[in-house]
């Protein structure tokens, strides 16, 4: 189920989402190139999660157009779902199932041919170093193991595009590095394009080819980490870039629900 070749795995034109009077995503024009790791950063409430929900077909846009994996967002939602992988910020592995069973569930949902299932699952377990834990219930996994399982289950069908929402939130440095290595491995081995949201500037520096900074629903700046830093000053860090755009409003966003979700996700994976 490979998507037809697209120049941009993600391309949006004026993509917007409004809830009642509240504009969460405001005319975003985004192009993510093939085989790149694209980071989306921005303060809480900047619209990152809403944008991702639209790109993963969970939420219909209010206006604007987009193609994801070469398919039209409004008319070909099912084809998009078949060709992308999505790792939500929340816990998406089922704790009451074993690692193997979680992968089996995904293999069936994504219609991986029966003859290939066992082989694919075995490979995914090896790549994520979960082979030894395959028959344990996921609720007994550590935070890092859970994230690796979640990445494994959402890439089992070899998606052309992988979207991850704050994949390393709540993880210790060792587990975080393991996730980064695995993500790079997916890109190098399968040519997967990766879109990742994060709050961790270190992650952007270490992982992302290009970054987009969102603020108040708008995509304010796009560039390589080096370009963005150079634009602010000679010895600027990404934090400085971030502050230059989002600074000023300290309490820029994030309602009770955002905070609750982030904290719970952090404690689930921690």
């Amino acid at each position, binding site marked *: 189920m490979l998507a037809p070749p697209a120049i941009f795995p993600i391309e949006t034109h004026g993509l917007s989402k409004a809830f009642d009077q509240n504009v969460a995503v405001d005319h975003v024009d985004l192009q993510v190139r093939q085989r790149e790791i694209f980071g989306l950063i921005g303060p809480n409430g900047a619209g990152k999660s809403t944008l991702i929900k639209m790109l993963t077909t*969970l939420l219909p846009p209010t206006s604007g157009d987009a193609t994801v994996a070469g398919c039209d967002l409004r008319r070909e939602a099912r084809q998009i779902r078949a060709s992308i992988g999505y790792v*939500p910020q929340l816990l998406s*592995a089922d704790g009451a199932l074993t690692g193997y069973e979680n992968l089996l569930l995904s293999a069936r949902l994504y219609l991986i041919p029966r003859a290939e299932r066992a082989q694919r699952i075995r490979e995914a377990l090896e790549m994520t170093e979960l082979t030894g834990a395959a028959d344990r219930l996921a609720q007994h996994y550590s935070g890092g193991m859970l994230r690796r399982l979640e990445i494994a289950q*959402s890439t089992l069908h070899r998606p052309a595009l992988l979207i991850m929402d704050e994949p390393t939130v709540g993880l210790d440095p060792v587990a975080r590095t393991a996730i980064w290595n695995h993500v790079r491995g997916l890109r190098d081995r399968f040519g997967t394009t990766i879109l990742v949201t994060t709050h961790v500037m270190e992650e952007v520096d270490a992982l992302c080819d290009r970054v987009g900074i969102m603020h108040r629903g708008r995509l304010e700046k796009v560039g390589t980490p080096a370009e963005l830093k150079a634009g602010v000053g000679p010895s600027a860090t990404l934090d400085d870039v971030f502050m230059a755009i989002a600074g000023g409003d300290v309490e820029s966003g994030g309602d009770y629900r955002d905070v609750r979700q982030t904290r719970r996700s952090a404690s689930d994976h921690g």
Partner: protein
Amino acid sequence: MARLAEAIMEYGTEVHAVADAEIRKLRHDPSEILTRAIQPAIWLVLFGEVMAQVRGITSDNGRYLDFLAPGILAQSVLFAAIFYGIAAIWERDLGVLHRYMVSPAPRSALVLGKALSSAVRGLTQAVMVYLLALALGIDVDISPVKLLGVACMIALGSGLFSTFSLIIACIVKTRERFMGIGQVLTMPIFFASNAIYPIDIMPGWLKTISRANPLTYQVDALRALMLIGGQSKFGLAVDCLVLGATFVFLVFIAARLYPRMTT
């Protein structure tokens, strides 16, 4: 033709994927099957034995316990199925639901998968109630054809009420509200049916409600199939038709509402 066969196979794989995951969870922690057997035992042993002393509930001179057993079987399945909604909200809150919603599986396949797993759960309940009924000396018909018939009715009823519960969950969206509304819904469904007393002794307005209640038709079919010499009031064909049509209608609605839970 080959394309169609393939599409049906794929659809079946996705329904099976959802149901199989649920059944595996039940296998990992089967204690639920035993705890759920307590409630029907209380109804049959405490309620049933006392009410059996009251004359005039059943018109023919049949024993009240015999009359009650199919009703309690349907009730235990109903009470288990109605909690599918809360499980759905729980899955949404965790994030597990997102993985189903971003998969290419058709939404109706996801709903049917849940209904199928509820059917399997209902069948384990049925086994427990049958064991209880045999222990209490109720005239249970254990011929294979009748057992198969009962299994079909349990599966259909269980799928129907779990899908109904899923629809409620999609509408109310939070656990707290569901807990409130779940209680308010299950009791009328149970009492405004022929589960523990015949429709004939009800006042006119309640008769009308009972006739519109799917549980009535499930219990009616179970009375004919579970007991030796059991009789159906409406006819098995009518029972199956009402339950089948309601189920299809509910799956259709649920498939439309289910994706809204993750927005």
